[in-house]
C-alpha cells in the first residue's frame, strides 16, 4: 500500500515536472535561475553593509535563500493543487495526500540541484564542507514541517478561494521577516517574532552545522523538531477531516 502510494507520487511528480517544463529546453535552469539571481542581487546590494558583520556572508545568504525557496515553492503550489486537479478528484478515488507528496518530490528534485550548487560554492570558498552530511537529516524534518503546513494550506484553500493570493502576500512578508539576508542577535522584537517562525530554526541550524561547523544550540534543535511534528500532526488532522469534502466543493 505504502509502496503503491509512493510509486504513484513519483509518477505524478514526474508528470507535473514535465508539465511545468513543457517545451522548455532550459528546464531545470529556470528553477536555478531564480535563487541565483536573488542571491546575486542581494549580495551586491547588501554585501557591503549587512554582510560586514556576518562571516562567510555569501554562503550564509545562499543557504538561506535556497532553503526558504523550497518552503515557498511547495507552499505556493499547495494552495492551488486541489483546484488544479479538480477533475481528477471528482473522478477517481485515491489518497488525496499524494498530491502534496508529489509537489514535495518535484520541488525536492530542483532543491537537490540548488544544494549541489551550494556545495560547489563551499569548495570555491575553501570552507570546510563535511558539515553538508547533516543536511539530509535537517531536510527530513524540514520536509515534515512543510508537508504538514501544505496539508493545512491546501485544504483551507478550498474553503477560502482567495487563499493563494493571501498566501503570496504573506510569504513575501515572511521572506522579509526571516533573517535570510541579515542577521538577528538574540534580542529585540524581531528575534522574539522569529521564535514563532519554524523556517528560522531550520535555516539557523543548517547554517551553524554546515557553514560554521559548530553544533547548534540545543533549544533550537528541539524547537525545530517540535514545530515539524506539531505541523505534521495538525496538518494530517485537518486534511483528513476536510478531504472528504473536496470532491463536493470543487
Amino acid at each position, binding site marked *: 500500500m505504502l509502496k503503491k502510494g509512493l510509486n504513484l507520487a513519483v509518477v505524478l511528480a514526474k*508528470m507535473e515536472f514535465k508539465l511545468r517544463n513543457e517545451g522548455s529546453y532550459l528546464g531545470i535552469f529556470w528553477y536555478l535561475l531564480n535563487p541565483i539571481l536573488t542571491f546575486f542581487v542581494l549580495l551586491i546590494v547588501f554585501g557591503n553593509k549587512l554582510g560586514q558583520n556576518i562571516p562567510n556572508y555569501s554562503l550564509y545568504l545562499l543557504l538561506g535563500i535556497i532553503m526558504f525557496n523550497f518552503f515557498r515553492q511547495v507552499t505556493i503550489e499547495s494552495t492551488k493543487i486541489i483546484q488544479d486537479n479538480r*477533475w*481528477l*478528484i*471528482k473522478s*477517481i478515488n485515491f489518497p488525496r495526500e499524494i498530491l502534496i507528496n508529489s509537489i514535495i518530490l518535484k520541488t525536492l528534485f530542483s532543491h537537490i540541484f540548488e544544494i549541489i550548487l551550494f556545495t560547489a560554492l563551499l569548495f570555491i570558498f575553501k570552507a570546510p564542507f563535511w558539515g553538508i552530511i547533516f543536511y539530509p537529516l535537517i531536510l527530513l524534518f524540514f520536509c515534515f514541517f512543510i508537508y504538514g503546513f501544505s496539508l493545512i494550506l491546501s485544504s483551507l484553500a478550498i474553503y477560502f*478561494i482567495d487563499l493563494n493570493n493571501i498566501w503570496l502576500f504573506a510569504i513575501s512578508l515572511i521572506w522579509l521577516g526571516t533573517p535570510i539576508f541579515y542577521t538577528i542577535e538574540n534580542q529585540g522584537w524581531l528575534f522574539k517574532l522569529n521564535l514563532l517562525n519554524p523556517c528560522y530554526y531550520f535555516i539557523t541550524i543548517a547554517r551553524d552545522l554546515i557553514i560554521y561547523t559548530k553544533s547548534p544550540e540545543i533549544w533550537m534543535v528541539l524547537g525545530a523538531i517540535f514545530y515539524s511534528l506539531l505541523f505534521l500532526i495538525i496538518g494530517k488532522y485537518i486534511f483528513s477531516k476536510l478531504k*472528504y*469534502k473536496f470532491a463536493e*466543493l470543487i
Partner: protein
Amino acid sequence: MKKIIVKNVSKNFKIGFEKNQGVLARFISFFSGKTPQRNIKTLDNISFYANKGEILGIIGKNGSGKSTLLRIIAGIYKKDKGEILTYGKIIPLINLNYGLKERLTLKDNIYLYCSFFGLSKNQIKQKFDLIVEFAELKNFINTKIYQFSEGMKQRLAFSIAIHCQPEILLLDEVFEVGDKNFKQKSSNKIEELAKNGTTVLLVSHDINLINKHCQRTIWLEKGKIMKDDKTSIVIAEYLNSNEF
C-alpha cells in the same frame, strides 16, 4: 457472490451554500448569517446489491442521483448514512475523460492513469500496446491530449479503464460519443469482462443499451429506487411513466 452491497444509503447536498468565497466574504457571511441554504436529498435510503459478473443497469432522469450513487460507491463522495460494502478493485469512469492531462502526451497519460488505478510500471509496459490498440490511437502516442477530439479522449479513457483489471467497473454514460464500430467493440468488451467475473454498473439513458446488456436494472427517481427487477419489467414501467 455479492460484490457490491449498498444498505440504506442517503446523501444530502446543500444547495445555495456559497462555496466560492474569499476570506473576507466568508467572515462577513459568517457574522451576518444570511446564507440561505436548502438541503436536497440526492439519495434517499437506497439499498441494493450486485453479484459477481453481473451487469447491472441503472436508469433514471437527469438529477435522479445516478452519478452521485456511482461516486459514493467509488468512494469519491462520502455518504451521510448507511453502509456500503465492496469487494475488489473499483474503476470508475464517471467523467468521460476523468481529467486527462491536456498538456501531456498520450503515453504519459496512460502511465499516469494506470498508476492511479494501481498498476506497477512493468504491468503498464505490458498493457501499453493493448490499451493503444484498443483505443485505435496507434499513430498518436506522442501527441498531446489537447489536440485530440472528444471521441478520441473518450476512447482512450475507456481503454485505460478496462485494461486495468477492474473487479468492479462503474460506467456513467460512456457510450454517448464514439462511432458505431467502437461502440460495438466496447460493448463486446464489457460482456467479456463480465464473463470473467467483473461486476459492471452501467448508467445510461440509452434504453436499448441497457436492454442488450443487463439482466437486471434499477430505476432511480429523485434519489429513490422506484423499481429493482428484471430489465424488461423495469424498462416497461419506466417508459410508461415518461409518456406524460
